[in-house]
């Protein structure tokens, strides 16, 4: 199952053997959505790198590295989610089925909001080392 999914990412010939080809503008719209997710992932990776490279050391040991790693992992996960969602949407359009639903945007939004709140708290209690 997982193997088949990953194979579809790389070899969409299998997807192209199913259903009929949709209007290319739909496919291009799907591609732009994919690219928007990729840029979101890149932004989080950039944020993680900026935390690691520019933020001064915090009072709690390794907190800075922890924040950076969480942002970087999230950025990489968004990239993989993006290609998976792109492939599934492409398949759904070919088969004239509803686009696949996803909880990912909601989960990501909540995770980012909580993370931002946590950072504000850290700054408010003076987490920076003097």
């Amino acid at each position, binding site marked *: 199952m997982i193997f088949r999914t990953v194979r579809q*990412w*790389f*070899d*969409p010939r299998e997807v*192209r053997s199913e259903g009929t080809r949709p209007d*290319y*503008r*739909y*496919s*291009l*719209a799907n*591609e*732009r*959505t*994919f*690219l*928007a997710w*990729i*840029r979101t*992932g*890149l*932004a989080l*990776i*950039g944020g*993680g*790198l*900026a*935390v*690691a*490279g520019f933020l001064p050391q915090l009072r709690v040991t390794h907190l800075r*590295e922890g924040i*950076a*790693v969480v942002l*970087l*992992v999230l*950025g*990489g996960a*968004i*990239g*993989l989610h*993006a*290609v998976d969602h*792109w*492939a599934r949407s492409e398949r759904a359009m070919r088969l004239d089925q509803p686009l696949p639903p996803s909880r990912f945007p909601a989960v990501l939004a909540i995770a980012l909001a909580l993370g931002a709140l946590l950072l504000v708290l850290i700054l408010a209690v003076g987490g920076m080392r003097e």
Partner: protein
Amino acid sequence: MTHTPPLDGEGDEDPDAPPGTARLRTRLSWRRTALSATGVMLLTLKTALIQQNVAGRALIIAVAALGWLGLLAICRKRIAAMTGTPPAPAGWSPAGMALGIAGFAVLGIAAAVLP
């Protein structure tokens, strides 16, 4: 009166819109993504400079530069493949981009965590 609503609210799928804007917007989207990847590559280089280990630093810089060139090549190839009518399917370009992004995440973790 029937009117087909645009696909994504930006109007180019409107039958009255000038033809070809979907393709143009997708091409620009690939260019924006290439630009974002360049920013991430530069940040990776900056983060690699905090590494004490000279060999590790050189390795991260080399892999980041190669990965960036790879992502640029994918963007360029996809943009070139979009000129036909109808445009060629995206093929493996999305998977390549996603793997490149995941690779940059791993590289970033190495740059941030290794002493």
